[in-house]
C-alpha cells in the first residue's frame, strides 16, 4: 500500500527548507523500496514547526516538525515501524494550538492538495457556489449582509453592503477585483490561502460575480508573492478546464472569468483606488472618493473590490449558513479573523478564531511570548500603519471597535511582537520613513509630512528643543491623520503617536503613566 506523506509547498515552509525535506523523504523511501506518495499541501500555519511533515495513518494524519533533511529516515521508521521520534507531534488535529482554533476560512488550508480541483470538491468545495446558484443573486447578497462579514483588508466595511451597491448599479460591464496586495508586515493570511487553498478564493470570486452581475474578475497579487501567483494561476486554469470559469459557470447560464495581475512593489497599491489605477496601467496614485469604486471603479465601471480573506470566506458563509458565521464574534465584529502572529514570537503562525480574544491571550498564551526569551515590550497590531501597544493594553479584545477605541486598529490581523531591546523612537521614525518611501505623492500631508516627520523625530532624539519638537510632531500627525487622502498618510500617525504616548522614555521624555493590566 502506498504511504501518503504531506509536505507543504507554502513559501513560509519552503523558506525554511521544505523542498529539501521532500527530496530527502523521497530518496529515503527509494533506498528502502518503500512506496510513498508526497502530497505538497499548503501550510497549517504552525510556522515554528515548519517544515512540518504529515503522514496518513489508520488513525488519521500524524505530524513531525520542524523537520530537516537528516530526519527523513527516522521519520519513515516512525511511520512504518511505529518507532518514537523526537520530532513527533502526534495526531495533527489534536495539536492544542490547532485544536483551539475555529477554522472556517482556513478549514482546508494545509490539508488539501492546492493543485487538485478534485481534492477541493472532496473537502466541501463548491457548496457555497451551489447554494448561490439555488438562491439567486439577491438572496446571496442578503446572506452575506446577514453574516455580518466586514472587509478583512483592514477597513472593515460591511462586504454585503458593498455588493448590494454594485448590484444596484446598472452598467454594460462590472468587475470583481480581489485585493491581494498584502503589503502589511506581519501579515501572510492572503498568501497562505492563495498557496494552500486557492480554489476557495476562486469560488468566492465567482459567487461575488454572480451576486452583483459582474462577468470579469481580477486578482491583483503583489510581486513579492511568486508562490501565490503560480498557485492561483494553476488553480484558475484548472477551474476553467472544469467548467467553473468561462461561459456557463458550473452548468448555469452565468458567465464569469478571472485572471491574475501582478503588482510591482508599491505598498500604496494595497489602497483600493490606487490598486485600480495600477490595474488600469497607471501610476498607483490614490483617487479621491467619491465616486466610490462600487459606482465608478475599474475602467470607470461599477466594481466590487474586496480583500482575499473577505472573498475566501464567502463560500463558507453560503455553504454553512450566514447564521453560523454571525453567531461567532463580539459586538459588531462577527465571525472569525485569521490572526497572524509574527516577529519575535515563540509560536508564530496563523490562528483563526472568533473575534473577542484579548491581545494578551494572543501574545502570551497563544504566541508563547518572544523566541529570544526576553520580556515582550511592544506589539504592533495591524501592519505598518497600526499602533504599538504596551503590555498595559493587553486586555484589549481583538475586534474592530475595541482597538479603535484605544487609538489602534486590527487592520488585516497582523500582530508583530517586539522584546525589550526595541527602541520605540526608532520604530516611530521608521513609520514616517516608510510613509515617505511609499507615498504616492498625490496629497501634501503624506508626501511632505512624512519627510518632515523623520526630521522632527531625529531632532527629538538628539534632544534639540525636545518639548517643542514633540508638540510639532503631534501637530504634524494631526495634519496627516485628518488631511491625507488615504490610509497611508492618514494612519501613519498610529504607530508614531502610540510609540510616543506609550513609550515616551525612548524619546527622552518623561515616562508614561499606564500600568500593566492583569
Amino acid at each position, binding site marked *: 500500500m502506498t504511504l501518503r506523506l504531506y509536505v507543504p509547498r507554502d513559501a513560509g515552509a519552503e523558506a*525554511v527548507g521544505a523542498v529539501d525535506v521532500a527530496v530527502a523523504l523521497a530518496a529515503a523511501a527509494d533506498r528502502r523500496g518503500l512506496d510513498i506518495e508526497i502530497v505538497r499541501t499548503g501550510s497549517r500555519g504552525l510556522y515554528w514547526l515548519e517544515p512540518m511533515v504529515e503522514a496518513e495513518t489508520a488513525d488519521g494524519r500524524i505530524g513531525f516538525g520542524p523537520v530537516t533533511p537528516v530526519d527523513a529516515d527516522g521519520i519513515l521508521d516512525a511511520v512504518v515501524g511505529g518507532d518514537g521520534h523526537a520530532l513527533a507531534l502526534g495526531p495533527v488535529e489534536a495539536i492544542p494550538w490547532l485544536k483551539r482554533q475555529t477554522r472556517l476560512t482556513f478549514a482546508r488550508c494545509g490539508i488539501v492538495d492546492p493543485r487538485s480541483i478534485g481534492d477541493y470538491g472532496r473537502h466541501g468545495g463548491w457548496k457555497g457556489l451551489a447554494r448561490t446558484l439555488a438562491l439567486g443573486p439577491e438572496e446571496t447578497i442578503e446572506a452575506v449582509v446577514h453574516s455580518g462579514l466586514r472587509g478583512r483588508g483592514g477597513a472593515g466595511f460591511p462586504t454585503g453592503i458593498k455588493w448590494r451597491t454594485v448590484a444596484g448599479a446598472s452598467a454594460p460591464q462590472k468587475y470583481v477585483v480581489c485585493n491581494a496586495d498584502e503589503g502589511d508586515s*506581519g501579515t501572510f493570511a492572503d498568501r497562505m490561502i492563495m498557496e494552500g487553498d486557492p480554489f476557495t478564493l476562486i469560488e468566492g470570486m465567482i459567487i461575488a460575480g454572480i451576486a452583483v452581475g459582474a462577468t470579469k474578475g481580477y486578482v491583483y497579487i503583489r510581486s513579492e508573492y511568486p508562490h501565490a501567483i503560480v498557485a492561483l494561476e494553476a488553480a484558475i486554469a484548472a477551474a476553467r478546464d472544469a467548467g467553473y470559469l468561462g461561459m456557463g459557470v458550473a452548468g448555469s447560464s452565468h458567465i464569469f472569468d478571472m485572471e491574475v495581475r501582478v503588482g*510591482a512593489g*508599491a505598498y500604496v497599491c494595497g489602497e483600493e483606488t490606487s490598486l485600480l489605477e495600477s490595474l488600469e496601467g497607471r501610476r498607483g496614485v490614490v483617487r479621491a472618493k467619491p465616486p466610490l469604486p462600487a459606482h465608478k471603479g475599474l475602467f470607470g465601471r461599477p466594481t466590487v473590490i474586496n480583500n482575499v480573506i473577505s472573498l475566501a470566506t464567502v463560500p463558507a458563509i453560503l455553504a454553512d449558513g450566514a447564521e453560523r458565521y454571525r453567531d461567532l464574534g463580539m459586538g459588531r465584529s462577527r465571525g472569525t479573523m485569521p490572526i*497572524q502572529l509574527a516577529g519575535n514570537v515563540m509560536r508564530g503562525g496563523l490562528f483563526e478564531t472568533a473575534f473577542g480574544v484579548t491581545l494578551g491571550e494572543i501574545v502570551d498564551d497563544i504566541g508563547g511570548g518572544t523566541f529570544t526569551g526576553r520580556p515582550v515590550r511592544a506589539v504592533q497590531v495591524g501592519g505598518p500603519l497600526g499602533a504599538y501597544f504596551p503590555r498595559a493594553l493587553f486586555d484589549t479584545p481583538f475586534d474592530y471597535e475595541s482597538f479603535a477605541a484605544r487609538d489602534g486598529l486590527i487592520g488585516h490581523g497582523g500582530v508583530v511582537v517586539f522584546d525589550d531591546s526595541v527602541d520605540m523612537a526608532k*520604530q516611530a521614525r521608521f513609520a514616517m520613513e516608510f510613509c515617505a518611501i511609499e507615498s504616492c505623492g498625490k496629497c501634501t500631508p503624506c508626501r511632505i509630512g512624512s519627510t518632515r516627520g523623520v526630521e522632527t523625530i531625529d531632532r527629538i532624539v538628539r534632544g534639540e528643543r525636545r518639548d517643542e519638537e514633540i508638540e510639532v510632531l503631534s501637530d504634524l500627525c494631526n495634519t496627516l491623520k485628518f488631511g491625507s487622502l488615504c490610509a497611508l498618510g492618514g494612519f501613519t500617525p498610529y504607530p508614531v503617536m502610540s510609540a510616543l504616548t506609550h513609550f515616551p522614555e525612548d524619546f527622552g521624555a518623561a515616562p508614561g503613566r499606564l500600568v500593566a493590566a492583569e
Partner: protein
Amino acid sequence: MPAFLPWSAERAAEIIASEAGREGALLPILHALQAAFGYVDRAAEPLIADALNLTRAEVHGVVTFYHDFRSEPAGKRVLRLCRAEACQAAGGDALIDHVEQRLGTSIGSTAPGGMVTLEAVYCLGLCATAPSAMLDGRVVGRLDVAGVDALLDEVER
C-alpha cells in the same frame, strides 16, 4: 541564476505586441520586458507609448513609480532583504548591516564586480519565519549571520 537577453528593440516590440491587447496592458508589458531583459530599457518607452497610444511621459511616469522596474541591468544575482517591522523585531537590521559590510556595498546598489545587487523589500509575507530574504526567486527564512553568510558564499561562487 536568471539569464537575460541583451536589449533588442525587435524583441521588445514583439513582447509589447503580444501583451498590448489586454485591458490595462502597461504593467504586464513592463513585467514581460523586465523578465526578458532583466530591466526596462529607456528605449522601450517610446515603443510602448506608440503601442498603447500614450505619451512617452505617461509611460516614463509609470516605469519610475514602481520600485520593481529597473532602469539598468542588475548584478548577476539579486538579493532582497526584508526591512519591514516583523523582520526588524527578529533582528533583521543587524543582518542587513552585516551583509552591507561584507559586500562593501549598500542596499539599493550593486556590489563591485556586478556579482550581486542588494535591494530592500518591505515584506515577503514570511513574517513568522523572520528575518527573511529572497535570492533571485528563492525565499529564505529564519536567517541569522551564518544563514546570510551561506547565501553570500553561494553568490560569490
